[in-house]
């Protein structure tokens, strides 16, 4: 049931963002309701974290970081997929609206990705004594972060705006294709040696599952709202750069 709620949220936000990106200026006000939804979901999730989720046996209260670390996975991958999708559609249609979506997805995605990389060590240090642990999830997240950052560098370094958009779109596709291989490669490289025991690996008690799910749903709506805001910005910036109506090109 939790998984369904998360999937429905993801699909709803995806559909909304796709719709929004077609006509940002007219449809921007719809983000107000999304923002409101996020504002309701966040305290709900926090309440679950504090009062509903049981204390875990080995790590005690420290384990509660789990409920902010894991939910961030969804927007991280959502952002990347959105960016690759926007890029692919831009290649086919040359419609700048798709490119704005690609950029917004990448930027907000990298924010959540960075968040995971910041929270991970905050959890790892007290839990396992090291700031960094080479576990599968954290390492793959780091690789994903590198790909994100490379994408954003490419956009800022490439000559001429249309070329930058095209090249970035191609890299987004290449990056997305690389991810499953990176995941498999990291798993392979680490063998079975250094996995810190992780509650999400073994079966999760139902209350924990629901709390994580609530976090995921909340984060997905926050993600959606942030992407909408970034889309508005992209649209404004494009308008600021565009030639005025009636001016010669």
């Amino acid at each position, binding site marked *: 049931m939790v998984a369904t709620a998360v999937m429905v949220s993801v699909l709803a936000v995806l559909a909304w963002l796709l719709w929004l990106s077609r006509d940002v200026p007219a449809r921007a006000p719809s983000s107000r309701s999304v923002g409101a939804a996020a504002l309701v979901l966040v305290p709900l999730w926090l309440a679950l974290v504090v009062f509903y989720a049981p204390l875990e046996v080995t790590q*005690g*209260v*420290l384990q*509660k970081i789990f409920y*902010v670390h894991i939910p961030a996975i969804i927007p991280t991958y959502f952002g990347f997929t959105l960016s690759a999708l926007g890029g692919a559609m831009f290649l086919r249609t040359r419609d700048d609206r798709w490119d704005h979506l690609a950029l917004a997805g990448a930027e907000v995605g990298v924010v959540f990705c960075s968040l995971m990389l910041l*929270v991970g060590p905050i959890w790892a240090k007290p839990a396992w004594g090291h700031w960094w642990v080479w576990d599968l999830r954290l390492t793959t997240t780091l690789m994903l972060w590198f790909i994100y950052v490379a994408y954003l560098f490419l956009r800022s370094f490439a000559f001429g705006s249309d070329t930058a958009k095209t090249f970035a779109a191609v890299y987004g596709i290449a990056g997305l294709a690389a991810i499953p291989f990176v995941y498999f490669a990291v798993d392979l490289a680490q063998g079975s040696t250094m996995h810190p025991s992780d509650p999400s690996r073994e079966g999760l008690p139902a209350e924990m599952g629901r709390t994580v799910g609530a976090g995921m749903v909340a984060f997905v709506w926050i993600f959606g709202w942030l992407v909408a805001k970034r889309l508005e*910005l992209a649209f404004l*910036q494009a308008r*600021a750069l565009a030639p*005025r109506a009636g001016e010669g090109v």
Partner: protein
Amino acid sequence: MDDRIGWVLAAYAVTALVLVGYALQLRLARSAALRDVQRRS
């Protein structure tokens, strides 16, 4: 209360800071872009 609660609070605080910080940065950029658009019209 487990004294490691400090770490937990740090994790949630960092999350809030990053997300709010990014939203603020978007707002600032948006104001700048609006000014640019108005200056042109």
